[in-house]
C-alpha cells in the first residue's frame, strides 16, 4: 500500500536528522554526504509512494488528472512534506549549505509521522463531483508548493530571530523561544500520544498530555509546557551560540527567508487565490464568498504582502521582517489546518 511506502520515507527523514547534526558538529564531508543521501533517498521513496498512490487512485477514477493524490488531508500533508524536502534539497544544492537539513528533515519526518498517528484516513477515497476540476487540481498543487516555500521561510526566519536576539527580555527573543518551546512540547506529546493510544487509528493529539482525562496529568502537562518554554527561554542563548558556532550565517538565513516568500507569494497568489477563485466561479457560481478558508487565504496573502512592503518600501531589515515571516507561516498553517479543525467551510480537507 502506498501509505506504508510513504511511512518508510518519513522514517528515513527522521534518520537523516541526527546525521545532519553530526555533520554540523564535525563538518566531516563524508557525514554530510551520508546525510544528504539519506534525505534524498527518503525523497525518492516518497516520490515512489506518491506514484504508487496515483496508481491506486487511477484504479478507481480511471482518469489521469483526477488521480493526482492531493484530495484529502492525508494526501495534502504528504505532498506538503515532499515539497518541503525537495525545496530544501534544491536550496542545499544551490547554496552548498547543509545547515537547514536538520530542521527540514525533522519537520518532514514529523509531518508524515503525524499522519500515521493522528488517525487520518489514509484510504484512497473516491472524488465527489465538485472536486473533479482541473482548476482545483492546479489550485491545490500550487497552494501546497507555496505553503512549503513559506514553511522554509518560517524555519529560516525563526532561526534568524533566535540567533540575532541579544537580550532575553526582547519581544523577538520571547516570541521565538515560546514558539520553539511549544513545538518541542507538541513533539513530545505526539510521541506520548502514540505510545499510550489503545488504537493507532484514533490517536488524538494532546490526548496523553494537555487534554488528558485525568486532571492531574493535565495539570502536570501544562506545568511541563510552561517549564519547557521557560527552559528554552532561559537557555536559548546557548542555542543561539550553537547556531552561531555552526556558522549558519544570518545573512544566509535572511536571504532564504526572503527567497522563500518571493517564490511562494506569486505561486500562492496565482495558485491559491486566482485559481481558487476561478474554480469557485465555475463550480459554485461565485468567485469569492468570504468562506472561512477563502478569508484566511486572503489574510495569509495580506501578511506576506505586508512582509514584502515592509521589507522593500519601508526598508525594514533583519529580524523585524523575520518575525513577519514566522507569523505568516502560522497564519498559513491556520488556513491549511486550523480553519477545518476550528471553523467550517466548503473545502474538503475538513474531515479527518
Amino acid at each position: 500500500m502506498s501509505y506504508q511506502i510513504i511511512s518508510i520515507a518519513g522514517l528515513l527523514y527522521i534518520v537523516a536528522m541526527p546525521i545532519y547534526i553530526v555533520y554540523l558538529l564535525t563538518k566531516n564531508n563524508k557525514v554530510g554526504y551520508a546525510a544528504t543521501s539519506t534525505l534524498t533517498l527518503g525523497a525518492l521513496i516518497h516520490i515512489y509512494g506518491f506514484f504508487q498512490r496515483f496508481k491506486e487512485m487511477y484504479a478507481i477514477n480511471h482518469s489521469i488528472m483526477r488521480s493526482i493524490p492531493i484530495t484529502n488531508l492525508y494526501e495534502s500533508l504528504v505532498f506538503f512534506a515532499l515539497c518541503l524536502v525537495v525545496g530544501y534539497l534544491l536550496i542545499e544544492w544551490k547554496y552548498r549549505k547543509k545547515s537547514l537539513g536538520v530542521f527540514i528533515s525533522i519537520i518532514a519526518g514529523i509531518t508524515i509521522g503525524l499522519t500515521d498517528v493522528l488517525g487520518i484516513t489514509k484510504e484512497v477515497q473516491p472524488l465527489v463531483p465538485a472536486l473533479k476540476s482541473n482548476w482545483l487540481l492546479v489550485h491545490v498543487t500550487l497552494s501546497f508548493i507555496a505553503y512549503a516555500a513559506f514553511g522554509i521561510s518560517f524555519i529560516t526566519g525563526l532561526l534568524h530571530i533566535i540567533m540575532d536576539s541579544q537580550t532575553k527580555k526582547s519581544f523577538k527573543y520571547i516570541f521565538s523561544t515560546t514558539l520553539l518551546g511549544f513545538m518541542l512540547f507538541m513533539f513530545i506529546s505526539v510521541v506520548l500520544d502514540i505510545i499510550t493510544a489503545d488504537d493507532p487509528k484514533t490517536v488524538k493529539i494532546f490526548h496523553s498530555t494537555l487534554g488528558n482525562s485525568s486532571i492531574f496529568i493535565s495539570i502536570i502537562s501544562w506545568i511541563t509546557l510552561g517549564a519547557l518554554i521557560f527552559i528554552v527561554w532561559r537557555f536559548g542563548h546557548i542555542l543561539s551560540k550553537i547556531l552561531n558556532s555552526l556558522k549558519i550565517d544570518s545573512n544566509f538565513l535572511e536571504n532564504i527567508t526572503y527567497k522563500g516568500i518571493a517564490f511562494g507569494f506569486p505561486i500562492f497568489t496565482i495558485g491559491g487565490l486566482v485559481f481558487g477563485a476561478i474554480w469557485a466561479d465555475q463550480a459554485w457560481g461565485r468567485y469569492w464568498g468570504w468562506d472561512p478558508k477563502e478569508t484566511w487565504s486572503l489574510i495569509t496573502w495580506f501578511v506576506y504582502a505586508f512582509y514584502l512592503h515592509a521589507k522593500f518600501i519601508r526598508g525594514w531589515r533583519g529580524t523585524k521582517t523575520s518575525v513577519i515571516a514566522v507569523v505568516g507561516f502560522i497564519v498559513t498553517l491556520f488556513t491549511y489546518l486550523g480553519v477545518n479543525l476550528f471553523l467550517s467551510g466548503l473545502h474538503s480537507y475538513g474531515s479527518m
Partner: protein
Amino acid sequence: MSKIDKWNEKIWSFFASVDLAVALFIILSISAAIGTVIPQQTEPEAIVKFFSKFFSPVTSMKAYEIVSLLDLNNIYHSWWFTFLLFMFALNLIVCSLDRLPSLLKSFKAPSYPLELESLEKMPIKKKVEVISGKILDNLSKILKNKGFSINIFETKEGIQIQAKKWTKAKLAIYLTHLSILIILAGALIGTFFGFRGYMNILEGTGLHFAISDTGKAVPLEFEVRCDKFEAEYYENSSIPKAYRSYIRIIDNGQVIKFNGKETVVVEVNQPFSYKGFTFYQTSYGFQPSEHSEFRFSYFDKTGKEYKIAAKFEESFPIPGTSATASVIDFFPALGIDEKGRVFNMDTNMINPAVLVSFDEKGKKTEQWIIAKIPETWETPYGKLKFNELWGAQFTGLQIRKDPGVPLIYIGCILLCIGLLIALFLKPITIFAIIKKDGIIFYCPSSKVSSVFEKNIDEIINKLKGEKI
C-alpha cells in the same frame, strides 16, 4: 503656500504613503479574521448563543448589541469594511500616481556621470584588482552579453560605466497594483448590477423565476425546464460520482438551441449561460410529486421491448398476457440486512427498487425489482426492467448574473503577470569605475544584493578568463 494647499498636500501624502498600506493590511486582516469567528448573516439567536459559550447570558446580550451596532455579524458587507476597502483602493491609486511620473521620467532621462561622492554612498560596493590594457572593451562586451545596456563616461577618477538591465520591469509593480484595482472595480460592479440566486426545479417541470440570496422571488424573462435529472453513485456508497440536469430554455414560446441542440447538460463544474445568466449545478434532492412516474421496459418472449410508465399504485397491463401489475412500494436506496430483509438506507437514489404486485385473474404475487440488478427483472410474466422513478427529484441550480466577472478575470490575469515579473525579474543597475589599479563596482539598491553579487562574480571570472 496657502492653507488649503497645505491641507491638500497633507491629505495627498497621507494617501500616498506606504505606511497607510501597511496599516491597512493589518486592519483588514484582523477585521476579516473576526468575520470568520463571529457567525455571519445569521439570526441574532445564533450570535448570542455563540457568545454564551464564553460569557454569562447578560454579557452575551451586551456583546450582541455591540456586534449589531458595528455590523460584526455582517462584516464583509458592513459600511466600515467597505470604507476600508475604499481607503485601500484610494491608497493604491494615489500612491501609484505619486510615484509613476518620476519612474517614467527616469526611463527617459539622459544619463550623466555620477559624482564619486554619491557612488561612495551606495550600499553595495566591491573592489576588484584586474589590470589589463583592454579592460574597458572587455568589460563592456561582457556586460552587453549579459543583457545590460551601458553608458560610458570619462571622469576625473577614471572611466565610469553605468550598466542597466530590466529597468522597465519596475513597471510590473504598477501593473500588479492596477490589477488589484481592476479586481476591486469588478467586485463593485458585481455588487451593484449583479444578481445571485437559486432555482430548485422538479424533474419534468419548469420555472419562470429564481429565488435571490435575499429570499425574494425574481422573475426571469424565460422558462428553465428540467426534463431529466440523474445522479450516479460510487458502488455501495452514498458518495455521488456525478450528477447532471438536462435543461431546456423556453423563451417567448420558443425552445432555444445551444450549438444546434435543444437540451443542455449542466453538471458540477460545467455551467452554462443564457442571456447573461449562468446556471451551476449545485445540489439535488428527493421530492416525490403527483406527476412522478415509474418507468419500465417490458420484453416479451421474442425480445420486443415495450415502454411502460405508471404512477404509484396505478395498475398497468403486462403486454401479451392477461396479467396486470402495479407498484406498491418504492425504496430509493434498497439494502438487505443480515437476515435477508430489505430496508431503505437513504433518501438518495443510490439503489432504486420497486415492489411490484402482479395480478393474474385474482392470483396475486409480489416481487422486488431493482434497477441495478438484472436478475431481479425476471418475473413469472416475462422480463420487466425497472428503469427509473422519473419526476421525483429536484435539481438545485445556482443562478448568477454578474457583469463584473470579465473584469475580475482580466484583473486576475494582469495580477499574475505583474507579480511574476515583479518578483522574478529584478531590475538592476551597476556602476563601475575603472581605475589604474582595478575596478570598483557599486550598486545603488541593497534589494538586489544577491543578484549583484552573482553578476559581479561572473563578470570577474570572465574578465580574468579573457586576460589569460
